[in-house]
Each structure stands twice: as C-alpha cells, then as structure tokens.
C-alpha cells in the first residue's frame, strides 16, 4: 500500500489509439519466449523456430556474426594464425575493453537514452588512476588510486544524469558536451607530472605492476582449471536447483533437458576458454594461464546481471525503458533511477578504460575515446540490446564486444589500415541496428494489430 502513483503524474494521459483489429495468433505465439511455453525439448525447438521466423531472432545474429568472423579471418589470416591460442588470448584482451564499455552503454540504452561520453569519461578516470600510482609523484596505493579514478568517472556521469533528468535536456546533447569536456579534462590530467603527457605503467612499483597485470597478468594454469571448475559447478548448481524448485512448485520453468543443455553450454565455454588460455602462447619461454581480465569481465557481467535482473532497481530501469508513464504511475522515482543509471554507466566505463590503460601500458593522448563510444554502442546493439529502450542484458555487451574485438583483431592481422577497420565496423553496426529496427517494427505492428 505504500507506493502509489503521484498525483500530478496521473493527469493528462493521452487515450490509447489502438484500433480494434483482429488477432494474428501466429505472431502472438512468436512473441512468447519459447522457454515459457515448452514442456519438452521438441516443443522448445518448434517455439524457437516460430520466433525466429517472426523476426525475434534473439542472440542468433550475434552467434552467426561470430561464426562468420571466425571462418573468414581464419581463412584469410596469414598462416591461419587467427585461431591460434596466442591470437585468441590477444583477441580476448582486445575485446575486454569493448565488452565492459558495451555493458556500460547498456545502462543508457535500456533506459532508451544514449551516453556518447563514456569513452573519454572512462579515460579521464583511468588517467587519474594511472597518474595517482606513479611512484615519482603521488605514489598512491593501487586500491585508492583505482577507487579515485572510478569515483571521478562516476561523479562525471552523475552530473550528466542530473542535467538530463532535472533539466530535461536530451541525453544525446548533454553527453556530447560531456564528451568534449571529458576529452579536455583527460588531456589536462595527462599533462600533470613529469611524464610529458604519457604516464605509463613501466617501472618496479607494485602499484604500477598491479594495474599492468589487470590485462597482462595470468593466473597459474592449475588454479585456472580449479577456478573454472568451481565457477561452472557453482553456477550450474544454482541454475539447476532454482529451475527444479520452480518446476516442482508449478511455476513457469524450462524443461529439465533445457536446463541441462544450458549448464552444459556454460561448461563447454569455460573448458574451451581455459584450454585456449592454458596453451603456451609465448614465442620463447612459457606464457600460459587465464589472463586476469577474464575474471574481471566476468565479475562485472555477473554483478550487473544481478543488479538489472534480480533487484528492484534493475526492474525499474527496464520499466522506464519500456513505458516511462507506467513507471511513473507505479510510484517509481524516474529521476533517481535515471541519474543513477548514468552514474553506473560512467562507473563501468571507468573500469573499461582502466583495462584499456593496462592494455596500452599507460595513457596517452592517442586514446580514441570517441571511436570507442561507437564501438561500445555497436557491441551492445550487435549483442541484442535495443536502441529503442527496454530490451538488453549485460551478456549482450559481452557477446557483441567479442564480435567487435574479432573484427578489430582480424583486420589487424591482415594489416589492413584503419580506414578499412572503420568501414567494416560501421557496416556491422548498420547491420545490427537494421536487425534491431526491423524486429522491433515487426513486434510493434504485431501488438497494435492484435487486440
């Protein structure tokens, strides 16, 4: 009884203009996720096929894109080096930045907004961290330096969020201004100290080393296997027990076979990744084990998945993205949720660009903050997040990030110049947005015709 709509918000509601037309049952069926109605695996496959035919393709395009990238680049890459363990780990490292930035952008996209500033806001935070750990100057311990960098990014995001929600400015313009301001501040921070604009992570300080290791450090192969086993068994048990409990108490749950397939897929992915990473990838000597960046990306993925899908806050983010008026009448504080989302977006971008600083072994004015925003949007959309709000998951950012990373890596192996990389990435983004728009138009017209 506590939460009820606010008075002023209920006034002036435009009447729904839905005309009375007849139903299109096959379209209606297609929009119901197959796992909800399937009692057996066969039914699931049939429901899934119906859904794809109706344009609700889910993660299928991103899987197809991944396969295409793997096949094409493996064929054309010199000595077929694309699928070598060394290159794949390299690909993971490059993709990690896109993945985290795409998860950041996800917060804005699910709300139906956009944040163009994340590249340079994240870079501003990362530059702050890199400057603070320098032994010649401030020499902060790494936890404090990372916290300070993320704080700078988060505050920047919260200020943008406040302007967008309280002054009702369009997020496109506010974050475009934020992009320029953060770019300037970033360059200013780089110039601090005696590093001539290139504070790097070389040197013997433990703090420098730790930040370098975010991307380049590896976990011992044996420990990698054990950790992967623990994670798979843990997640598998959680999924199995929860599905089982729901099935027993008569709630909506997928059939047992499907649950097992899901867990099996997770296990296969884990084994493949650890196998790749545990192969010796050094030209001379030994370099093996899962890079730190993989668990870092996983932690971000799991944390944001729980936040968005298992908490009230996440539910409100989706509700606002789907129908702000409904959210308002449900008593949700729209400004607060939106502002916090922009803060979370910038916070996550701070993590992403810190990984980038680690990958580059320092920070310099060469950081392409603007380009990275577009890659982040592209990765999120390719992964299945809608540009029109209300739909998307952190996992989409990870999948899309892998696609963008694959293109980036493959083009690099081909030694194609940047102009081609831009063109191909642009085409992939266009393709992803087209799929998003077309599938949305399909479902939108569907829900109007069906009354």
């Amino acid at each position, binding site marked *: *009884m506590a939460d*009820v709509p606010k008075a002023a918000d209920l006034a002036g*509601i435009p009447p729904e203009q839905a005309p009375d037309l007849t139903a299109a049952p096959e379209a209606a069926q297609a929009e119901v996720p197959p796992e909800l109605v399937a009692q057996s695996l066969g039914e699931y496959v049939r429901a899934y096929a119906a859904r794809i035919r109706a344009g609700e393709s889910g993660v299928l395009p991103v899987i197809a894109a991944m396969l295409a990238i793997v096949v094409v680049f493996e064929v054309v890459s010199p000595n077929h080096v694309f699928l070598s363990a060394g290159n794949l780990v390299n690909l993971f490292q490059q993709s990690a930045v896109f993945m985290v930035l795409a998860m950041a952008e996800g917060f804005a996209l699910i709300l139906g907004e956009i944040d163009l500033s994340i590249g340079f806001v994240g870079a501003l935070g990362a530059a702050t961290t890199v400057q603070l750990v320098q032994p010649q100057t401030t020499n902060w311990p790494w936890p404090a330096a990372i916290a300070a960098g993320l704080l700078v990014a988060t505050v920047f995001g919260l200020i943008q969020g406040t302007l967008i929600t309280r002054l009702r400015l369009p997020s496109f313009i506010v974050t475009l201004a934020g992009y320029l301001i953060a770019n300037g501040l970033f360059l200013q921070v780089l110039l601090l100290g005696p590093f001539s604009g290139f504070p790097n992570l070389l040197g013997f300080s433990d703090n420098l080393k730790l930040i370098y290791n975010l991307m380049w450090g590896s976990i011992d192969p044996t420990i990698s296997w054990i950790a992967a086993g623990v994670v798979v068994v843990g997640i598998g048990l959680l999924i199995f027990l929860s599905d089982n409990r729901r099935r027993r108490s008569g709630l909506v749950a997928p059939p047992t076979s499907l649950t097992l397939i899901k867990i099996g897929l997770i296990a296969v992915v884990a084994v493949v990744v650890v196998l790749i990473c545990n192969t010796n990838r050094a030209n001379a000597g030994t370099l093996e084990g899962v890079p730190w960046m993989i668990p870092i990306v996983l932690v971000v993925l799991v944390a944001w998945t729980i936040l968005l899908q298992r908490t009230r806050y996440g539910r409100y983010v989706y509700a606002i993205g789907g129908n702000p008026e409904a959210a308002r009448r*449900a008593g949700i504080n729209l400004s607060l949720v939106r502002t916090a989302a922009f803060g979370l977006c910038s916070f996550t971008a701070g993590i992403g660009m810190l990984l980038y600083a680690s990958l580059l072994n320092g920070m310099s004015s060469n950081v392409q903050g603007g380009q990275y925003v577009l890659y982040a949007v592209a990765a999120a959309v390719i992964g299945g997040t809608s540009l029109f709000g209300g*739909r998307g998951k952190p996992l989409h950012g990870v999948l899309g990030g892998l696609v963008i990373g694959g293109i980036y890596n493959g083009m690099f192996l081909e030694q194609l110049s940047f102009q081609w990389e831009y063109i191909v990435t642009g085409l992939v983004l266009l393709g992803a947005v087209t799929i998003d728009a077309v599938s949305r138009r399909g479902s939108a017209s569907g829900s109007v015709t069906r009354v």
Partner: protein
Amino acid sequence: MSAASAERVASNEPLLKIRELDKHFGPVQALYHVDLDLPSGQVTALCGDNGAGKTVLTKCIAGIYQADHGQVFWQGQPVHIRNARDSARLGIETVYQDLALADNLDIVQNMFLGRERLSTGLLDEDNMERAAKETLAGLRVTTVRSIRQPVASLSGGQRQSVAVAKAVMWNSKLVIMDEPTAALGVVQTKMVLDLIKRLRDRGLAVMVISHNLNDVFEVADRIAVMYLGRVVVQDKASTFDRQSVVEYMTTGGLSRSGGRRTEGS
C-alpha cells in the same frame, strides 16, 4: 479495521458517498453540486457526453484533483482525499484507458511494478509469480499462455484483464475503469464485461465510465448520467432505457414524461 467494519454494519451505506462536490478550474465550473453513490457489490456506470465532467469527477475520487467544496464519505465516514496515496490507502484503484503497462515486462512484473516483493534484498520472483497466478485465477483470467510472457504479446482484452488484476491485487474495495472496452472487439469486450461482473460478485464497488450503451446495459446495476458538470440522474439500471439515457446525456433531462420507468414511486 475494526472501526471500519463496525461502521459498515451500521446500515446499507454506500461504500463511497459524494455530496455537493464542486470543482472549478479558474472561471470554468467543471463539477457543480455533484451527488454520487457507489455501493459495494454493484457496478455503477457513469455516462455523459464529452466535457460532461466524468473525467474530472474520476480524478477527484482518485485524488488527482482536489475538490473545492463538498463532502466525501467512505463507508459512512467523512474523508478527505488529498492525493493519489490517500485514495489508494482507502482501497480505490483506477484503471486508466491507456492501462499503463510496460510492454517489455511480463505479466507478473507488470502486476507488481512499484510494489515488488523482496527476499534478502533480491526480487522474490517465485512469491510474486504465485500471488499473480492466484489473482488471475481468482478472476478466471485463463486465456494467457504463460504468466511469464511479455505484455507486448497479449491481446487488448488480456491487457485490460492484467490491468484490472493489477488493480484488485491490493485488496481494493472500489475499482474505477475508464472506457474499459473502447478499443476492444466483440469477443474481447465480452471477456472484459465478464471480468467486471466477477469483481462485482466479489463484493467490490465498480465504477465504469463508458460511452457504449450496449456495454452499460449489459453490465451496470446502476446508472448515473452527467450533463454539464452535474449528475442529473442516478438510479437502478432497470429504470432506464437507451432512449432515456441518451436524452439525459444530451439535454440533461427528459422532454416527455413517462420516458423512464420510475420504480416504487
């Protein structure tokens, strides 16, 4: 609660009684000395032409507008409904014409939007799904394929049902529905009208705003007609026919005597 139930025993007081309600916006008198009774276990249809004041009256009851003068009695007790929170606390829920459902969320998520149940800080989906299922089953809304399907995949009648279920889940005593059948086809309309009857059979007071006289006569126990900011007539539905309702709606009175069968007078 005990005071309230004691009060209800007192007489067959209507659940909500409005007396001499006035509301003006600047120089425009939107409501003028409105009297209206909404008894429990009955469907009251509120008819009137555009601009007659139906929406303003609804919003005064829902607490979105505050009346300038007049008294409101809830179960015989005088109350002041100052905002939407007050009306919800009394047990008044309004289903607006646009339903306010989020298309991308499923039925359970929509029904609990803004009032999610938690266990250890996380959403208690099992608990919410069970409660939503019970509520829908209680209203005999059985046509949905899965309670977990997104609202985007529901038909108009099903959406209306979800919106109504959302309203009655909070132990509401009075449900106000604004044009619930306006956008629906024949089958869907019947489904919604049946739902309204079930709410009545459960002992709720229901107020339906409608232009559609077929629906009004199908479902209403009582009819109130507004004309230019006044409730010109309210009585049992059986005392009206189409002709008389239309006449009240368009002229505010009856031109010829005997057009209405007045019972017991």
